[in-house]
């Protein structure tokens, strides 16, 4: 029987080598398999296969109560765990009609942006590891550790904190929280120039990244790409501006965009996003009241009224949506998580074909997929 996950050789063509990249390849950031046809070092065909990490969250969640589901949403994009809770919570809050106190909104926003920095740091480290530089990896993970420590002090866990909840956050922040976050921002701003020196300004990196994996504006929109990928192609689409949630309407920030659409532009956009996150957190730290309610009034048994709601947030990888269909009972009728990496990975055939094999690695790391979220 033909293995359904390979591609057939072209009859009469002997110069094409078909090679399986993954699911256990070092550069696939998890369990992606791309079947690649290689002509020398040039890619002639690329067929991605996903699903190696599929757990059918959506079916499991139909058998869980709304409160229990929050801890499952964490497990989608485990690199930016806390961010994944928000679209589901926003959708259920809409259905419940819960009012979120402003302090809770600001705390959520601070955590949300902290996790964006954390996630981008992981991306930066592993992306540079793919390009052959080991040192930035160690630096970024050390910086990320500080965010995780801050999170652990307040939320009780490092990567998958299960901290947001309907109507606010689960518990009040630790007394040191605001001080710690401010200290981290000061520290992080001293580290950013180092990353610029090691990555964006490095001529070797520029040689690898400029003009590689160019994605046009039209293609990016049509393929449903989101996050830094679409913004690097010149589309200023950011859910934080398009449909603001939490405290974002009151905060000022830019959406960094770049027209080139190549790997360098995607790296650049993520770098600038980290700077914008620092700005956002600083504003939020100024605005947030030191004390006050951290959670709105939510009934002990969460039973939204029948209806359906789609809400989206801008996580580190892009547009993460949650479509919640309630039938009025304690259990949801259907939950769909629209994950950004899932849509972004559709670009693999577009971007890989015609590139060199080493470029494919750079392109993949610039797409920054996380497979917990792709396969769900």
């Amino acid at each position, binding site marked *: 029987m033909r293995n359904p996950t390979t591609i057939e050789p072209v009859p009469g063509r002997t110069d094409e080598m078909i090679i399986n990249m993954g699911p256990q390849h*070092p550069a696939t950031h998890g369990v992606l398999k791309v079947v690649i046809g290689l002509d*020398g070092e040039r890619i002639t065909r690329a067929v991605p296969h996903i699903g190696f990490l599929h757990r059918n969250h959506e079916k499991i969640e139909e058998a869980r109560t709304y409160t229990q589901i929050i801890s499952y949403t964490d497990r989608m994009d485990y690199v930016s765990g806390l961010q994944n809770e928000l679209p589901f919570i926003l959708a259920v809050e809409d259905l419940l009609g819960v009012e979120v106190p402003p302090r809770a909104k600001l705390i959520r926003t601070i955590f949300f942006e902290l996790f964006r920095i954390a996630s981008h740091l992981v991306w930066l480290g592993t992306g540079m590891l*793919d390009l*052959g530089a*080991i040192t930035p990896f160690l630096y970024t993970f050390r910086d990320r550790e500080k965010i995780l420590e801050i999170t652990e002090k307040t939320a009780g866990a490092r990567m998958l904190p299960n901290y947001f909840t309907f109507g606010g956050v689960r518990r009040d922040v630790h007394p040191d929280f605001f001080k710690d976050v401010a200290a981290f921002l000061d520290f992080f701003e001293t580290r950013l120039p180092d990353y610029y020196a090691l990555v964006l300004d490095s001529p*070797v990196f520029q*040689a*690898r990244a400029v003009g590689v994996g160019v994605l046009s504006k039209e293609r990016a929109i049509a393929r449903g790409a989101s996050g830094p990928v679409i913004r690097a192609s010149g589309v200023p689409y950011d859910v934080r501006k398009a449909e603001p949630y939490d405290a974002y309407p009151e905060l000022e920030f830019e959406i960094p965009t770049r027209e080139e659409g190549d790997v360098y532009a995607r790296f650049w956009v993520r770098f600038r996003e980290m700077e914008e996150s620092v700005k956002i957190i600083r504003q939020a730290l100024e605005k947030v009241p030191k004390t006050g309610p951290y959670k709105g009034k939510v009934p002990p048994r969460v039973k939204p009224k029948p209806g359906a709601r789609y809400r989206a947030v801008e996580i580190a990888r892009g547009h993460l949506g949650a479509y919640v269909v309630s039938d009025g009972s304690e259990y949801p009728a259907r939950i769909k998580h629209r994950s950004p990496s899932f849509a972004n990975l559709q670009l693999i055939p577009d971007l890989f074909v015609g590139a060199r*094999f*080493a470029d494919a690695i750079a392109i993949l790391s610039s797409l920054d997929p996380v497979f917990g979220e792709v396969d769900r």
Partner: protein
Amino acid sequence: MSRMPLPTERLVQPRLVGYDPTRPKPWLERIAYALFFSALWVMVVLAYGVVPTVFRHYGWLKSPLGFAAYAVIEAVLAFLLAAVVALILIVVLRKYLGKVQERVGPMHYGPAGVFQTVFDALKLLGKEDFAPRRVDWLIFRLAPAIVFVSAFLLMVAIPVAPGWLIADLDVGLLYIVAVSTLGAYGVVLGGLSQGNKWGLLGAFRAGAQLVSYEVPLAIALLSVGVYAGSLRFVDIVEHQYGLWHVVPLFLSFIVYLVASIAELKATPFDLPEAESEIVAGYNTEYSGMSFAFFFLAEFVELFLLPGFMVLLFFGGWHGPLFGLDPTSFAAGLLQSFYFLVKVAVWVWIFLWIRATLPRFRDDQLMDLAWKGLLPLSLVGLLVAALFRMFLEVL
């Protein structure tokens, strides 16, 4: 037992093995590394200084038996030296990468982990040397040997002090070009014979890269030969009294620096074994001691290529002698020490570059070799020839 053990019932309690890394003793570490360095020095003195001097002094080299004994002894010594060099450089590399990456690196075996590689080597010796069924067995087994032998043969040509050398070759420069090219064969054959597509890709890349960079490397060496008027290392080093070659032959030096990093297959030119792209390249299917031979050869070359650079451009063993007779044994000790220190500095720079830069792409690598380094090396050759002409005229 059917229930979870309580923390107090744990069978394995954490205990320290040897050195306590939580309480570092900087002086102990420094002494350990100084001892390591002096072990290297002693090996160098034995292999290059004592044994050849003794054999030449007593004229044993003239008899066939004496020559055979000399060859065997030197082979054993050079092998030990290669092993010591590799063991030291691996632990230094790991320790240095640890330092610049804000971690500690190896730390358990010996003070600051100086014996880590010894235990690593023992582990590799004890491992099963596994070969998949599809490999071309003979070539698969031969390839690591070719790679190691080519690195090993290069050690013969190095002089470390006046008169301290294993073989005084009249065509030393040609010899190292020829022998180092041999190593490329081992890498390519190893990649091709293993029946693995990643190995095949690695072999392609290695073949293209090593062959390309041999050309500018050879021309850079040639320009030194032209300028110094000899292909003998001893003559070249003697020629540098007054002015090290790095000043007049700066272009050739740059070419040599870049090309030797590429020959080492080190970042930013580590494409043949780019672990994030082609898994492990040409040594994907190697394990155990076969893998260790590739590894050993790589680190021996990490010692030898800076060594040649020091000989060709940085005045070899030149250094203040404090009025000693340059041919005496004490001066030889001092001069070999200078040589080793210069090599150590260059090894450090190589490691530094390795810790900083990402990797080039294959076509950029070729572009750099053929469009950048080759013209530059030809210009360097021209410059060397012109300088030589002026020297002749003067």
